[in-house]
Every structure is written in C-alpha cells, then in structure tokens.
C-alpha cells in the first residue's frame, strides 16, 4: 500500500493545487492485466497490458462534472483539472448533490497477493497445458483462459478524504467439448492464484463433457432443478440494482413498496458483505464512504436496501457505502452478495430427487419483465436428467423463462455457500440449490 499512497498523493497534490472548484475529488487507478487464452487444445491469444486512470470530479455548489485521462505528466493533469472545473461550471445544478464526504475510517481487507501479480506468461502457459493434456487424453477439445491482474485504486478529495485499495485477481476457466454435442465447463477466480485448482477444474469440465455426449431431447415444461452455484450466481446478478435505494425511490425496482414484506421463501437470506473471507473488492464506495455489512433479505423478508449519500438523504436513511462514482444515473447496488445456504451437498440433492434436471450454468440471461423479475436464458455446458436419485442422461439445452420471485419461493434445499464464478458479473458467495417448478419454454438442437 506504500507505493499506492506515494503515487496517488503526488497526483492528488498536483490536481488539488490546480483546481479552482469548491470541492474536488480524484480517483486514481493503476492496473496490470495479463491473459492467456486457449482453444482447440492450443494457446491462440496471449496478452498483457498496463494502464492508469486519473478521474477528476469538480463541484461548484450543486454543479458537478468529471473528466478522465491516462496521461500522468503534471502539465496534462493541470489541463484536465481546468477542463473538469470548466465543465462543472457549465453544468446545470443537481438538487440532490451533497457535499463530498470528510475523511473516513475503513476496515482492512486483504485481497493482494504478490505471487498473483508476478505470475508470468510462461507460468500461465504451463498451467493451461494441464487442461489441454486432460482434453487430449479423453479425445476432447479444450478452450479457456488463465489470467492475472493487479489493481491499485485510491480516492482523494479536497476535504482530506483518502481511501486506498489493492487487489490481485486470477481466474481460470475451461470448456471441454466432445465431437458429439457434449460439453462441460468449470471456472474459479481468486485473489490468490495459488488457490485456483486448475487440474480439478479441468477434470470436472472434462467429466461433464464425456457425460454430455449424445444428449436426449426432453419436452419443454416445468421441472425440478438443481442449480450449481454458477447458475445461481448469474441469476442473482439481475436482482442487484433492485436493492438500490434510488431504484426504489424512482419506483423502478421490483422491490418498490415491499420493504418488510415476505418476498422469498423462509430459507432465503441474502447479505452484502465485502468483509466476508470469500469476498473481493474495496471496503469503500465511489465517494469513499465505508461499506457496511447489510442484511438485504432475512428468512425471505426484504429487510434493508443499500444507499449512496444522495439516495440516503432523499430516503431519510443512512448511507451504506454502496454508491457508484458520481455523476451516475444508477445510484447504488450491493456488489458483494453473500447468500446463506444449508447443509445439503450436491450429491445429496441428486439422491433426494425423483425427477429433475442438474444445471451447470446458464447463458445469455436477459431481463424480460423488470417488475416481475422474469428472466430468459439458456442452459449450457452440462444439463443432465436426474431420475430416482441418479444422474441419467445428458439433455439437450433448454431456454427458460422464470421469475426470480417464483424461483426463490420454491427453493427446497440449499448447499454450502462457496465463492462462485459466472459470466454475468463478478464472483460472489452463493450455494447450490434445488427448486421445484422451474419453467423451461423451449429446447435447442444440441
């Protein structure tokens, strides 16, 4: 954190000295990102980049504007500060804009690992040879990624607020495919690259690819489903904005006028908690307000929303540290979801099921109805029929149309919460679950 403090302070000082605004806020980030990509059992893309971003927000009374650059020389910083001042002075007033926060105290989180930052292309290449060799040994084609990154991020404002965050992140994912329509997929991301079990994930994907060969076609309809954590995670992504105080104030949230009401089954409890040991992320929001642990849904009852400074003021509530960088039109959202689970393992869920479907993951999920929270999407890379407590056949992929209200009122069993990765958002902590009466509306040809 010492390097970040020194680098950012130098930039903060230059900008704050040049600014003529009533208030000035600076976001500084420095990133190094590398990714090795493989397909058809060989590396086909491989890259590394470095960038910085300096974002300056000026305020004159209730007028504000933001400029962003990746030029770090003092002359460019002064020029961009003047532009930020100029744009803010030209803007119209935002009656909801509040003064910038004073210095805050933050709880520490540890998400930066030197080994992740220093992982080289050669290390990643050797790592991806593992899934490639597993695929070749089973006559499969593999594709996937192994990436690592380091992000340093700091916020400073003219009132003396300083907030710092350092985070590394590594992620491995692979899709294994057979020549007869079968495919399997696995993915895991973590701040500490050494925690990524590349071989285990590759074996898991390859086993599903082998099991998925020659899928049968089932009619669309209502089925009991066992959703693996990645499938649960990608559905939850579409509910996060609804927990925002601004969305509720504007009546565009599916939870409008539902606070205190039972919206889900009694076995559903959701928190937002950046301090959870399996979580990632900075302990502060886009204005530098410390993130609080918030219970959003407790035993099915909508308990709390999350607020930025502005929406909290409008709703007569307290800010929770979930606001986006200003200016924005979205307000805030809980990005560090922790969903409580149960003690039923995936294996037990399968054994307890007379007839149902095991879903590895969903694909191309989109919101069909924002108030009923109806989503559509496809199953992908491992959908299996379960009969009499056993996995039977692979099944051709289905399209679903399902309301999240309906789904989370029909959950019968929950697994242990794990850190899960999907493709619709960032990693979060969720369990596998079993739910009845899930709606599939059509199937595809593979």
């Amino acid at each position, binding site marked *: 954190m010492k390097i970040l403090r020194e680098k950012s302070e130098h930039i903060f000082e230059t900008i704050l000295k040049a600014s003529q605004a009533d208030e000035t806020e600076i976001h500084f980030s420095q990133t190094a990102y590398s990714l090795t990509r493989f*397909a058809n059992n060989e590396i086909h893309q*491989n890259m590394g980049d470095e*960038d910085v971003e300096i974002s300056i927000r000026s305020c004159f009374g209730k007028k504000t504007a933001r400029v*962003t650059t990746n030029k770090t020389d003092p002359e460019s910083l002064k020029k*961009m500060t003047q532009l930020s001042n100029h744009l803010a002075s*030209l803007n119209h007033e935002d009656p909801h804009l509040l003064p910038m926060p004073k210095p805050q105290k933050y709880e520490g989180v540890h998400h930066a690992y030197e080994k992740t930052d220093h992982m080289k292309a*050669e290390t990643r290449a050797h790592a991806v040879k593992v899934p490639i060799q597993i695929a070749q040994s089973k006559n499969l084609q593999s594709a996937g990624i192994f990436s690592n990154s380091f992000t340093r991020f700091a916020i400073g404002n003219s009132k003396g607020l300083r907030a710092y965050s350092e985070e590394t992140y590594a992620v491995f994912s692979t899709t294994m495919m057979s020549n007869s329509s079968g495919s399997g997929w696995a993915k895991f991301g973590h701040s500490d690259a050494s925690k990524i079990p590349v071989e285990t994930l590759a074996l898991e994907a390859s086993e599903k690819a082998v099991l998925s060969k020659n899928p049968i076609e089932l009619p669309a309809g209502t089925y009991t489903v066992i959703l693996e954590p990645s499938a649960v995670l990608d559905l939850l992504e579409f509910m996060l904005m609804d927990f925002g105080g601004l969305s509720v104030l504007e009546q565009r949230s599916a939870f409008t006028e539902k606070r205190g009401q039972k919206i889900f089954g009694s076995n559903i409890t959701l928190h937002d908690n950046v301090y959870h040991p399996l979580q990632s992320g900075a302990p502060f929001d886009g204005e530098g307000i410390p993130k609080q642990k918030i219970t959003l849904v407790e035993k099915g009852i909508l308990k709390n929303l999350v607020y930025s400074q502005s929406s909290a003021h409008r709703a007569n509530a307290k800010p929770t540290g979930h606001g986006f960088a200003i200016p924005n039109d979205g307000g805030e959202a809980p990005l560090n979801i922790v969903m409580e689970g149960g003690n039923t393992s995936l294996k037990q869920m399968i054994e307890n099921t007379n007839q149902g479907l095991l879903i590895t993951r969903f694909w191309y999920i989109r919101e069909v109805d924002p*108030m009923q929270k109806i989503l559509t999407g*496809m199953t992908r890379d491992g959908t299996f029929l379960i009969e009499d407590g056993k996995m039977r056949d692979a099944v051709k992929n289905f399209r679903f149309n399902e309301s999240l209200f309906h789904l989370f009122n029909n959950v019968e069993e929950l697994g242990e919460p794990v850190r899960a990765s999907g493709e619709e958002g960032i990693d979060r902590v969720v369990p596998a679950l079993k739910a009845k009466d899930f709606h599939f509306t059509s199937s595809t040809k593979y």
Partner: protein
Amino acid sequence: MQMKEHKYHFTSESLAQEALGEAVSLGATYADVRLIESGSRALATKNGVPTSLDFEESQGLGIRLLCQGAWGFAATHDLSKENVIRTAFKAIKIARASALAQKTPVKLAQESPIQTEWSTPYLIDPFSISIDEQLNFLFQIDEAARKIKGISIVETQMHFEKEKKLFLSSEGSRILQNFITSGAGFNVLAFKGGDLQKRSYPNSFGGQYQRKGYELIHELKLLENVPRMAEEAVQLLSAPSCPQGEKDLILDSSQLGLQIHESVGHPIELDRVLGSEANYAGKSFLTLDQLHHLQYGSPLVHVVADATASHGPGLGTFGFDDEGVPAQRTDIIREGHFVGYLSSRETAPAIHENRSNGTMRAESWNRIPLIRMTNVSLLPQAGTFEELILSTRDGIYLETNRSWSIDDRRLNFQFGTEIGWEIKNGKKGRMVKNPIYWGMTPEFWNACDWICDANHWTLWGTPNCGKGQPCQTMGTGHGASPARFLAVNVGASH
C-alpha cells in the same frame, strides 16, 4: 456543406516505429503496432437533473507480433522510449510462452502493404458544439416529455467519440485513420400499479449511433418525436398483453437490426466457427460444411457485410481494419443461400480464401484485434410499409427492442420489444404490451416473405456488442427495412 477531412500526425510516431523495429530485431517474424489517441464526451439527464457530464481521453500503444509462429501482444499507456522498448520485449516473451502450447505455427494470408490516410466523412465536429447548446437541447427534450401526464421518468443522452489511430506493420504498411462517432436518444418510463412501461427513441441502448458528426443529432428529430413516445408509454399501461400463438410477424427496422446482429452477424464470425470463442461467446451452427449449402433464408434475403463508406456511416464503417486490410463488401446470404463468413488474415485460409475480408478490430490500444461484425445489413427489396400492412391478414407489428437472448450456437432466440400492434385484415389495430417472439434461426429467416424498399431502410448502430476474453465492446452497424416473417411464435412476457 462539404464533408470535412482532417490531416493529422502523431508526436509519438517515431516511438511506434522504434517499437516495431525492436520487435523485429528481437525475433518477430511479423509485427504490427497500433498507436491510438481517443476522446469522448457524454451528456445525460434524468427528470431535469444532469446525470452525466463526462469527458474521457486515453492514449496508448499496442504491439502484436508473431515469434516462433505464435502470437504475443503487449500494450502500454506510458509512451516513454524506454517503456515502449520494454513493451516490445514483453510481447516477444508472451509469444514465446504461447509457443509452449501451440500445435501449428500461425500463417497469415497475404496482404499488400499500403501507406495511406482515411477519415470519417462528417459535416459538423460534435466537439465544436458548446456544452451549453448540447445540455440545453437535452433539457428541452426532458421538459417536453415530462409535460405528458403519466410519465414518471425521462432519460436523455448524447455521446460523442473521436479516435486517431496509426497502424504500422513490419510488412511496410503505415495507415492513419481518424474516426468520429455521434449518438443520442431518450427514454420515457411510465409506472402504474406495479407495471412499468418504457419507450425509447430512436432505439433502445441509448438511441442511434453512427460514424457521423453533429449533423446526426439534427437528423434524428428527437424533440419532434417526444409526444408520440411519451403518449405510447402511458397508453401501454392500459393496453392488453400481446396475444399468444403463431402470427405473421412484422418487425420494425431497429428490432430487425438486432435480429440480424444476433442470428446472422455473430454466427458468421469465422473465429467463432473455428472454436476460438468456445469458452465464452460460444461456437456457431454455421460449421464449414454449411458454406454454399445451407438455405439460410428465403430467396428475398440478401445480407452483406460492408465496411465501406459507400454503405453508409455505420459503426462498422472504416478505411482499414486493425490488420491493415482495406474495408470490403462481402456477400453473406445471397438469394437465401449462405455464401460468406467474416474472416481475418489468420482464418481466411480455413475457407480456402487467399485474402482476409477485413473485419479485425480491437476495442482500444490495449486489446487484441478480433473478427468483429462490420455493417452486417439486410438489403432492401420492394414495397412500402403501408402495402406491407395492407397485405397482412392476421399479424403482429413490433417496434424497439426490450430484451434479447440467443443460445451459444446462435439457433434458439427470444426477443422482446417495447410495443406491438395487432394487424387484422390489412389494418393496424389495437396496441399490445410486453410482446415477445421466439424461434430457431434458419426457420425464421426462411419464413421471410416481405422486405420493404430502400425508402424505409435505416443503418442502425449497435454500440454495445461484447466478444472475447477479456470482453471487448465494439460498435457494429446493421441496415434493415421493416420485414415480415410468416407463422412465428409470439406471446407476452407475463
């Protein structure tokens, strides 16, 4: 007015040349460098309050090279000589690492080197228009929409981008390009009793985007369309749900643009067909054996991928792609037959072509170029929209996308739109809400029996196409005029 052209130069061009030279001296058998400076201005309002007044700029350099027959790519924002040389060395090390897990050395289709410049044709530089004028225009729209009783939220937006790009290659190409992009639109939302209805103009996803100057904003007639959009949003609250069943489906050109994007544009990407995107975006039902064999659509269906300026100011219009290949027009579907893919220098030989058709683009200086849709457009045919309605006995007419989803091989799709109308015996009837339609790609395009004429044709900009790992966002163009598809499954989202 005359179209403007700008001559320009890069102060860092000598650094880019040094990076290229360093890459070759370190063992690259091929190398290219892209040096980019970009800037954007975004303005937005919501219910009389500014929600965005942002300016962003970025500069950097990316080096792509082949060493030991494998790809390496490195990029940096730091344009000091020392760092640019270090970045070239890093790209070499990455390529050598790629070679550790590579079966076949990469071979590129031939491309003649060229030294030239190209600029987006435009009339009015959007960055020359004052912030005051732009903000005041958005607030005028906002105020006019909020005057309509029943409107709860009004959102307006404008977005402008400029980009200068220098491409240098070890084969001797030097290409300077200058792009201008403009976009604008508004949304109106109405709520009642737990129902939320929305209308967007001229399209969803923030409106219309084109490679044009500020003249686009004047052409869009935003203010003139506020009353109609606002009134429709309010009327939708009390409209019946879209009836369910097989209907003759008429799509407006904007929704048809997205249908083309999802069910033609993506499956024709040759990298996707060959498996490069299998872990994320997926593969394609258009396997190589389908080329020149698949009846993709009815004989009316003629789709081209056209990046040339003569096609129009689409988001896929350019002079040269990010491999230095000139913009081209390629037939994709001709008289319903599947006849072409989007290719690159690496993939073209897979379909026995000796040249790329020029579709490689990267989101910015720090990303690898990928095969991206250019302007993938459905060519107009004959007949007016009025004649189309008159000739429809039992149909549904749908406008403006609300939701979209398609499987990872681009077969099973479902789209929802903001609004629809029943068509009965040649007349536009009652308004219906929450319409969706679904189907399978080849069956859908084979059911096309009417495409309106060129007077109804619009080149839409899709600014938010995602592809690749890391995901890169790219603008694509899709021209379409309203069209009819027989016996399509329609229904309501509830």
